[in-house]
């Protein structure tokens, strides 16, 4: 997002207590107009609490929320400008699809004909032009969530809040709806916040991801940034799969046992304990037991403990020298055949410098 843009939603120093429990702790965040934001984190991290505070459903204990230049911190939900979709759909069971979508419009005292047209176009938008006279119980989960979505969009809110909207759906429907929601956002440009614990969902849908843990923001960034340059061990561990190793800074390099690895060490001083991380797909493997190992600085000998076939690729569990523990490395099925990898194979693993990241241990 361009920096010059004015923030549409501005959250400052927001804290929420439940009794003695701190659900959200002094959290500040800016969301820009038209952005698709994901709050991502494990359950209990405060992401839903934050969403409900923005909606005014469970007001924050302290801190302020500004929407579109207006301080909404003290407004009841009915005076805020948002549409909301829940995991449970929360469709009114005794009203038809049409009546559900028209629910908010009828309140604005629009003429009947206009309501009819608007509902029709909304249902068209979510790909459900038929079924208007059906009741929610007669629809599938995916269809219900589409109706809930068009109901939330009916009053043209400035902010769309999605609280784990896909979590109750089947895997296939979930993936399809992901793309549709994203496409819908592209078309309408409404600022959207999606709460999810599903990293794949966040990575595939969001413009920016807010990774949360223990009521705090761990990192804000594009999916690419979050994945390739995690800002903390938590993010590194939570997003994707990651290998962690204990090491020590030694003259600008990282030393683990007998091996040293060159990588970006910033200005961390010598002797500092660090955690070295590398993703399984970034580990390079080759069978060059004959060639000289010192050729490549970041390489070391490993043994294949086990192989797990995962369709398009294989996950190898490798045991390395002292200090490495068990490493996970992903190889394409093609590569596995080429290298003739089997259990107990001996390989050389290489950690490419640019794919290594280190986190200083808190002392």
């Amino acid at each position, binding site marked *: 997002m361009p920096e010059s843009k004015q923030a549409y939603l501005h959250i400052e120093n927001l804290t929420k207590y439940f009794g003695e429990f701190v659900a959200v702790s002094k959290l500040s965040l800016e969301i820009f107009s038209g952005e698709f934001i994901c709050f991502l984190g494990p359950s209990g991290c405060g992401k839903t609490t934050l969403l409900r505070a923005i909606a005014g459903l469970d007001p924050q*204990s*302290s801190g302020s929320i500004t929407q579109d230049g207006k301080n909404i911190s*003290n407004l009841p939900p009915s005076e805020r400008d948002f549409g909301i979709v829940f995991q449970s*759909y929360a469709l009114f*069971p*005794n009203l038809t699809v049409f009546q559900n979508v028209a629910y908010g419009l009828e309140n604005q005292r629009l003429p009947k004909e206009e309501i009819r047209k608007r509902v029709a176009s909304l249902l068209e938008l979510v790909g459900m032009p038929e079924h208007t006279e059906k009741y929610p*119980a007669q629809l599938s989960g995916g269809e219900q969530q589409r109706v809930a979505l068009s109901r939330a969009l009916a009053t043209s809110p400035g902010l769309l809040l999605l609280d784990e909207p896909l979590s109750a759906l089947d895997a296939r429907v979930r993936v399809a709806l992901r793309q549709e929601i994203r496409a819908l956002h592209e078309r309408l440009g409404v600022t959207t916040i999606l709460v999810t614990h599903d990293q794949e969902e966040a990575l595939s849908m969001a413009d920016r991801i807010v990774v949360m843990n223990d009521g705090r923001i761990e990192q804000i960034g594009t999916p690419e940034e979050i994945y390739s340059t995690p800002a903390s061990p938590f993010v590194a561990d939570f997003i994707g799969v990651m290998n962690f190793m204990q090491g020590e800074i030694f003259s600008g390099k990282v030393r683990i046992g007998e091996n040293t690895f060159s990588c970006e060490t910033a200005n961390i001083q010598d002797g500092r304990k660090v955690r070295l991380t590398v993703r399984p797909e970034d580990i390079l493997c080759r069978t060059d037991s004959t060639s000289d190992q010192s050729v490549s600085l970041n390489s070391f000998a490993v043994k294949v403990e086990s192989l797990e076939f995962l369709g398009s690729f294989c996950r190898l569990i490798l045991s390395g020298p002292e200090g490495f523990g068990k490493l996970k490395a992903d190889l394409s099925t093609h590569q596995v055949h080429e290298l003739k990898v089997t259990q107990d194979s001996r390989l050389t693993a290489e950690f490419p410098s640019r794919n290594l990241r280190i986190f200083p241990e808190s002392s």
Partner: protein
Amino acid sequence: MSSVAALPVSATSVSGASSVRIRISRDDIALRSGLLLLITLLVVAVVFPLYTLLSKSFEDMDGEFVGLQNFREYFETPALFNSITNSLGVAISVAIIVLVLAFVYAYALTRTKMPLRGLFRGIALIPILAPSLLAAISLIYWFGNQGVLKSWLFGASIYGPIGVIMASCFWVFPHALMILVTALSTADARLYEAAEALRTPKWRVFWTVTLPGAKYGILSTGFIVFTLVITDFGVPKVIGGRFNVLATDVYKQVVGQQNFEMGAVVSLVLLLPAVVAFIADRWVQRKQVALLSARAVPFQPKADPLRDWLFFSFCSIIAFIFIAMLAMAAYASFITFWPYNLSFTLDNYDFDLMDGGGWEAYYNSIRLAIYCAVFGSGLIFLGSYLVEKTRGVTWLRTILHLGAMLPLAVPGLVLGIAYIFFFNHPDNPLGFLYGTMGILVICTIVHFYTVSHLTCLTALKQLDPEFEAVALSLKTPVWRTFRKVTLPVCLPALLDVASYLFLNAMTTVSAVVFLYSPETMLASVAVLNMDDAGDIAPAAAMALMIVYTSACFRIMHALLSRYLKRRTQVWRNQ
């Protein structure tokens, strides 16, 4: 639930910032005012009367405070004190007998393939349609001095503990059965399959799976039966003879001897076991919640001819006794002069010729029942809605909920006396209600408030808690969502509550017996008075009128519910 919403945050000082106060919307104001209004109503209709009763027990006839004088007097009067042991003895005996019989009956209904289960269930629920007095009257015809089966008692008299226990067992049976059927219906089939896979003998499955699963239902039944019996006054009044119990003592002190202070003392003594049973039952109920939350596969009994016929025989005997009880009262109500002239007559239904209020009493009862059903269900539903759906103000909602739970702990007799003291007080601006239909309606609604409140609350809790959040985001006023969604979805529960209130208003004696006036005589009270005057056949006839009316209403309710269910089947997920 968003109950934590506007809690005053205790930990604010930790964060160092001031707490955010959300501006109160117009809806919030309406809901909170509703809460306050209902709390006020309950305080006036429950708390104030009970307080007056309490203070009365510490006063002498002139209203002077005398401390524990009345209590000392009470415990020094053996005739009064004996009633405590009598009451406890009867209540515990009935609790044990009914628990065993109703458990077997409920087991037969839920866990066997015995034929005619629906019929047996219907027959066992008959007593709900009748005042408790009916059983006592019927027993007099069977086993009384002129009874057809008097010899079966081997010289023992039905007028006394035997009669009280037998009649009580009859009228509390359906209450016990309903809880036990529910408890036994919630079995998890997977437990039985696991037990079978482990080759567990059937008796061991019963002891290790069935009984523990129904444990809380059994305990709850025991408490409820105990409370119903110890606070019932109709049965011992009619068939107790010289056998005094707490409930009849209250009546004698207040109505017979006009000794209101002593009546207050006895009511407090009566209140004690009821409150203990209430608290114990609440505790049990809370435990049960955790048990039910598991995702269970419903249990389907398999046919087993020997077992099924054994249970069939058992249920047939019970059902036969039930029908015999009702049939004898019905038969006797058409007899000219038992047992000397057994010719058929309708004279006993000519209530206007008897002492006891005549047909007017019957019409009053119907009026009372309709008022209670209409106003009671509306008010109680509103109250439970406010408890469940108001945003914030947790403490107000808790107060209203506690206020709604309180009446369950207060026996009808105690409530009735408390109402006399409170509404008959010369300084009470609400005194104009005394002796009117109004006070009967209020008293009856309050008397049966708690069960209705819990029924509504259960229905409301089944709604998605996010409905209100969605409605708020769509800028819909709360009353519109209430009218368009909440009310239609909860309509079946609302009908159940209306029906419950109607039936109880038709059959109740205990509270209203202190509050009726000559103009507001009720059918159930008329049964009592006619029996008192020796007009047993007309008393039976009036009791039967109550049964017929209740049965008609029950059928109408069933038809309406079925129609509603069919109409809304499309959107109810069956």
